[in-house]
């Protein structure tokens, strides 16, 4: 099996990538501005609902129930979808999914496809596989189009081009659409994209989509979006291929009631998405006449097997945790080396890859808990981060200096006598580094700390010494 999450296995480690990115003033400004705006909108519309916490609890309960009965619900979906005229394919990993999709397009004798925004297709590297087979994929989500035309990587799961500003988008469009006179006026930019895409909507006869939710009971698929470009892809072509991670399933149609309240408010700060496309199989004479579903595992069943990690699969990809995360706000999404950025990326990417790659991601968090606070599916992200850290240590994949330092600290904290002894050693050891009452220049792995912060030296008397002295003089 070849489980891949985009190019995550080859990507530089988080601290290295982050170090480079936080020096990019343009990206930082763009990311800060965009996340601040979305966060503000999200907080306002969430505050409107009195039952927000109950909705979160329901979402969590529905997802947990579904995951515990996943096989049953997947089979139920397969039967219902097939019954409604769809065809269901199963893919164990990225390669199998790509081969299936390429095969379906070739069977239709087509060499071009239009795409609705789908992070899952980025996860399996679908565009690269299509291009290798001589098939041209065109992204139709505006942000995805910007990323594709800019030969760039997505930096946010909801707003993939969040790291770009208007001026940069104008540059990309000018170059790729051959429009040298284009200004950076938002309306002009949107009009350029509309003209560019409309030609494709009318010509290309096969579309690829992802899904936000799939309903076991009825075999229904649901895609929500803001632009209407998705709706074009879902309704104009004759053939539709929908790629779905197996965790996207929910049991009943009425469960949408919960999720369609949570998702738009969390994702874009809207009360409802402008376009909610919900369809079941094939309707003769209306919309796509051939409908394929590819159900993707790609490491998900392994995540499911882990008691603590399992909740990661509750994710509805709203991106709220990214916008709330103070680490993401500083670095943007590219530091995470994965199509899944931010807190959800930090727990999903390494788990999908069986903890074989991206092991610095669980440490890319100060554990401030802002992600858990906003997550509409109530995923306890800090808990999963800690769980994954313990796995990194268990696998002996932690850096040597850290293992040694932690061992020494554990020994020093074993009992009070040892702690007192360690405090005395510390007082002597810090001497060479002390200047004007502060420590400003430590070596080794402590250097990063004192690069921008002074450290207070260990004072002459510890609390316990003070207490002992006071006790005696009583």
């Amino acid at each position, binding site marked *: 099996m070849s489980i891949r999450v985009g190019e995550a296995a080859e990507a530089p480690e988080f*601290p290295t990538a*982050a*170090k480079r990115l*936080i020096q990019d003033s343009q990206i930082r400004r763009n990311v800060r501005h965009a996340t601040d705006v979305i966060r503000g909108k999200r907080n306002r519309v969430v505050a409107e609902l009195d039952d927000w916490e109950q909705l979160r609890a329901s979402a969590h309960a529905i997802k947990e129930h579904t995951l515990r009965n996943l096989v049953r619900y997947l089979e139920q979906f397969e039967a219902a979808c097939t019954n409604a005229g769809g065809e269901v394919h199963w893919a164990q990993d990225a390669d199998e999914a790509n081969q299936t999709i390429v095969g379906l397009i070739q069977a239709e004798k087509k060499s071009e496809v239009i795409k609705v925004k789908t992070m899952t297709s980025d996860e399996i590297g679908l565009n690269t596989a299509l291009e290798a087979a001589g098939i041209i994929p065109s992204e139709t989500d505006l942000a995805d189009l910007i990323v594709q035309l800019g030969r760039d990587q997505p930096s946010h799961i909801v707003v993939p081009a969040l790291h770009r500003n208007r001026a940069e988008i104008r540059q990309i469009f000018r170059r790729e659409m051959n429009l040298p006179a284009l200004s950076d006026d938002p309306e002009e930019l949107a009009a350029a994209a509309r003209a560019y895409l409309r030609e494709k909507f009318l010509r290309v006869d096969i579309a690829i989509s992802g899904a936000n939710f799939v309903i076991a009971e009825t075999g229904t698929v649901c895609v929500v979006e803001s632009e209407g470009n998705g709706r074009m892809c879902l309704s104009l072509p004759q053939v539709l291929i929908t790629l779905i991670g197996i965790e996207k399933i929910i049991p009943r149609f009425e469960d949408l009631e919960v999720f369609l309240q949570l998702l738009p408010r969390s994702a874009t700060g809207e009360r409802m998405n402008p376009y909610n496309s919900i369809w079941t199989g094939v309707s003769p004479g209306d919309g796509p006449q051939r409908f394929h579903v590819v159900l993707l595992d790609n490491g998900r069943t392994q995540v499911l097997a882990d008691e603590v990690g399992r909740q990661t699969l509750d994710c509805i990809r709203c991106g709220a945790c990214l916008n709330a995360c*103070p*680490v993401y706000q*500083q*670095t943007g999404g590219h530091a995470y080396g994965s199509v899944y950025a931010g807190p959800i990326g930090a727990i999903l990417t390494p788990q999908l890859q069986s903890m074989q790659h991206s092991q610095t991601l669980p*440490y*890319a*968090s*100060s*554990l*401030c*808990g*802002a992600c*858990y*606070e906003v997550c509409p599916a109530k995923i306890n992200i800090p808990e999963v981060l*800690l769980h994954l*850290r*313990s*796995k*990194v*240590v*268990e696998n002996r994949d*932690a850096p040597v200096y*850290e293992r040694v330092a*932690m*061992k020494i*600290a*554990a020994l020093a*904290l*074993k*009992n*009070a006598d040892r*702690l007192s002894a360690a*405090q005395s050693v510390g007082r002597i050891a810090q001497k060479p580094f002390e200047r004007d009452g*502060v420590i*400003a220049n430590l070596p080794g*792995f*402590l*250097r*990063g*700390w004192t*690069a*921008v*912060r*002074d*450290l*207070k030296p*260990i*004072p002459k*008397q*510890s*609390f*316990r*010494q*003070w*207490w*002992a002295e006071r006790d005696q003089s009583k």
Partner: protein
Amino acid sequence: MTISLFITCYNDTLFPETGKATVILLERLGHTVEFRAAQTCCGQMHFNTGYVGDALSMMRSTLDVFATAEVICIPSSSCVAMMRDQYPHIAQSTGEPALINAVSRFLPKVFELSELLVDKLGITDVGAFFPHAVTLHPSCHSIRSLHIGNKPQELLKCVRGLTLIELPDARQCCGFGGTFSLKNPEVSAAMLSDKVQCVLETRAEFCTAIDNSCLMHIGGALSRQRTGVRTVHIAEILAATDAGAIQ
């Protein structure tokens, strides 16, 4: 009431003034304070970095030390969060009924300092005097794990002479995160610089918190940048009186 102090390893070592202030404050309020000298560390640093086995030993010894204590006061919300959020899971994972029981007997006795004062002892005016402009950094653990609410602010508002200035973007993390600040020093520094900017905007003389870990971090940058703004643990403000305010 006899109150047993858990001073935590880094307060004991680096910030003894906080422990002393806690003792002075609680005694001034008429309570008997004890310090069990066998205590060391709650295990937070090891647990948060992935060293669960080491954290488990520290949890065992902490439970032993405080088995007979009535009320335990901890002037550090991150250590309290470690105990409340993690001890039950760590105990569960051993499958030892005795340990699981020990944790459930231990936790109801644990109070962070402002919880102890406001919830358990029912006081907000502790008779303190601190004639300075102060801003409060609500640490992540205090708001998202302990759900401390406005308890620290209520206590500070009753301090005579003190002007409390609201911190902009207060709920944003300072970027410390324990070993996070060593593993990702640049990102941590970037978060810190945002926090420092907010602190400076208040024009306060002191930045306070219920955690010395954040204060060590914020204070480190305030000192390096020669801002003249100092950090002080809330216990030290609450312990200060006309007779002995820190200067």
